[in-house]
């Protein structure tokens, strides 16, 4: 049996499923816990029905500084000894496995549902019956002056649904628990069940503000399994679209953060510039969120020379307009006072919760798939990783501002040096019995789609990890000690996806 780290598994490179080790569950626990101690981290962890009514647990591990991926697995019945006591990073993943497969991780310290749906990847109905989706006891603090605040699922603004339960002492938050799942649409099963054309439309709808991010990663998984090689031009266009998506969302977040501290000029300016970026995506793809652009084999649309020139002009104008607006916002003393020291995420939490994306980089953790597991155009054109150190709302805002500047430079540079060639090549049937781990750096952070094919080349399992899956736990960790009235600001500074988490 090959060791978990010797499989030749890398970002977007398919290998035979049979080569992934199947270990006795005790050895599996030791392998995973040992790897995490040696600097690996969990990219994905899930279960799928396997032979003889067993469930196969799959652990996908990443070693960022070497750009390596590893995988190992174990077959279990209706219960197994939980990994969480050895590796707290797995706590949320094991809750998800219990809910999706009905398998009980024994000894898990906080076994509750993640999305509150019946198991949809259980090996047998008997195993599925093992998990109680309705048992969601909220953590409560008792005491004379302690009170509880419940918010949601229908919120005050135009926001997705979620439920927040705060334990507070006066204005001060003691504990926050987040109950999600209201947006659960059964995405993974649709991706597994639908033909390719429909599945891509579902992938584009995992999170409506991350169409390029999720659509691109899903299509890359399909391409890897079909051995379809995109042209350099298609890779560059996808990279450009991904960075415009990042620009739109980061700029929108700067405006929303300004709005949450009642600095209206910031909200107005950035809100408008966000729209300009969405309109750029509409110019390219016909849709403000880039729907329809990315398809297996490349891109549906090309960038003709006049469009390239017009886009470059618009982006250069944006670059001129955004700096004064950002300096106005970030240079304002009252804005600084409202952002600094609020919603601090500790490095310890950042590490144990496996936080990704801008919130991790705002804790000086230089984690970025474009840099660590480079793919597509990012293998040739490097974007420096933006970090800050304080872990507060200000740091998360600064990371966004740095990334806006770098993405702007990147897109303008790419538009000037677009490789020649076709934008789409054929993408044939999927190779049977394989596994691929496709990762990408969406604007919220690391997106991971693990796709496993069956013996006939159909999709047997498609596991999606949105960055919000990791990062919602960071919101809960960052809030205690803050004022209840700062909750919207803290939440906005993470700006996580409910839809991406709920799937």
């Amino acid at each position, binding site marked *: 049996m090959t060791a978990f780290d010797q499989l030749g598994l890398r970002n977007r490179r398919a290998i035979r499923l049979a080569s992934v080790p199947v270990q006795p569950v005790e050895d599996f626990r030791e392998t995973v816990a040992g790897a995490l101690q040696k600097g690996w981290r969990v990219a994905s962890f899930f279960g799928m029905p396997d032979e003889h009514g067993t469930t196969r647990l799959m652990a996908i591990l990443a070693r960022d500084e070497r750009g390596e991926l590893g995988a190992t697995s174990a077959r279990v019945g209706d219960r197994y000894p939980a990994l969480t006591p050895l590796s707290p990073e797995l706590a949320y993943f094991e809750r998800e496995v219990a809910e999706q497969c009905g398998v009980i991780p024994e000894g898990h310290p906080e076994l509750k549902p993640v999305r509150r749906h019946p198991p949809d990847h259980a090996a047998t109905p008997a195993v599925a019956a093992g998990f109680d989706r309705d048992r969601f006891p909220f953590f409560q603090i008792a005491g004379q002056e302690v009170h509880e605040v419940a918010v949601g699922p229908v919120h005050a603004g*135009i926001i997705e649904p979620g439920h927040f339960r705060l334990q507070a002492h006066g204005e001060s938050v003691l504990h926050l628990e987040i109950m999600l799942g209201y947006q*659960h649409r059964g995405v993974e099963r*649709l991706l597994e069940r639908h033909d390719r054309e429909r599945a891509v439309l579902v992938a584009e709808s995992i999170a*409506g503000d991350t169409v390029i991010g999720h659509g691109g990663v899903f299509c890359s998984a399909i391409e890897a399994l079909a051995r379809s090689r995109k042209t350099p031009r298609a890779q560059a266009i996808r990279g450009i679209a991904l960075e415009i998506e990042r620009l739109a969302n980061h700029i929108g977040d700067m405006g929303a953060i300004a709005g949450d501290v009642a600095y209206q000029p910031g909200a107005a300016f950035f809100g*408008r510039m*966000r729209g300009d970026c969405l309109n750029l995506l509409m110019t390219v793809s016909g849709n403000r969120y880039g729907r329809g652009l990315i398809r297996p084999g490349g891109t549906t649309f090309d960038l003709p020379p006049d469009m390239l020139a017009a886009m470059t002009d618009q982006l250069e104008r944006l670059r001129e307009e955004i700096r004064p607006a950002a300096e106005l916002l970030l240079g304002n003393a009252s804005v600084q006072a409202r952002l600094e020291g609020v919603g601090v995420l500790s490095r310890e939490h950042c590490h144990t919760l496996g936080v990704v994306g801008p919130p991790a980089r705002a804790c000086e953790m230089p984690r970025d798939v474009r840099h660590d597991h480079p793919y597509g155009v990012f293998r040739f054109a490097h974007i420096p990783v933006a970090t800050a150190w304080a872990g507060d709302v200000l740091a998360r805002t600064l990371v966004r501002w740095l990334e806006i500047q770098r993405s702007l430079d990147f897109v303008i540079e790419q538009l000037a040096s677009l490789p020649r060639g076709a934008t789409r090549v054929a993408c044939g049937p999927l190779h049977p019995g394989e596994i691929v781990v496709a990762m990408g750096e969406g604007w919220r952070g690391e997106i991971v789609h693990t796709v496993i094919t069956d013996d006939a080349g159909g999709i047997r399992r498609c596991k999606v990890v949105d960055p919000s899956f990791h990062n919602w736990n960071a919101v809960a960790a960052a809030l205690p000690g803050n004022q209840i009235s700062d909750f919207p600001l803290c939440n906005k500074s993470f700006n996580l996806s409910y839809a991406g988490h709920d799937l």
Partner: protein
Amino acid sequence: MLRFLRVRLQQGVRTSSFPGTDVEFPERFRGRPTRDPGRCQDGCSTCRSRMPSGLLPDAPSGEVRVDVGACLFAPDETAACPHQAIAFTRDYRMAARTREGLVSATGEVELARALDAKARRLFGRSLRLRSVAAGSCSGCEAELVALGNVVFDLARFGIQFVASPRHADGLVVTGAVSLNMRDALYRTWQATPEPRLVIAVGACAINGGPFRGSEEVGNGVPADIPVDLWVPGCPPHPLTTADGLLRLLGRLEDGSRPATG
């Protein structure tokens, strides 16, 4: 202060000319779909077998009909027809008062008629809406938020989103209505004082969109919640929603100009 004024001047006035003058959309913009029956070949049903959405629903009589409400505005939908009978126009106006108004042989939409005089007196110059996202991808919500920015500025028409159903004249429902949101949607609807409007925004709220058929969703707004305005799109462009709302309120005459007063 001087610095602020300088930036403010540089940013300029950005409010859209809608609905005063025609708004330019880029060449690739995918608006209302059309079907040219003249291009259809006898006995050909390739489009139906290849259609990745509910754009061409099965009709009992076997005729081909276009359901704009189920359209996902994806290039794959036009590619499903080998004879180029299906195409996207750049027409952003496609909100209808009835579900049937979105279905036709050619993709024509029966554009929303205004509410009756009594309802117009109530809502015509001040409409307060509450958003309920129920099993969406959040794309539609993002476009509803955009309606409030300085470009679209829906508030200039007296339409605003409010924090509670108790303050609202109507609900805007987005999403395929997941099982986990069903109860919350009913309760929010019941909490909205009558007379109340319900506006279904996006393909998901209309018929489940890309999630149609999933065991976890209800394929759109439940039948026992009456809908006053259907706004197609995936997601609908902000102007598609704004156009539908203004038509509903009788604020658009002869298709483009705003009614005065």
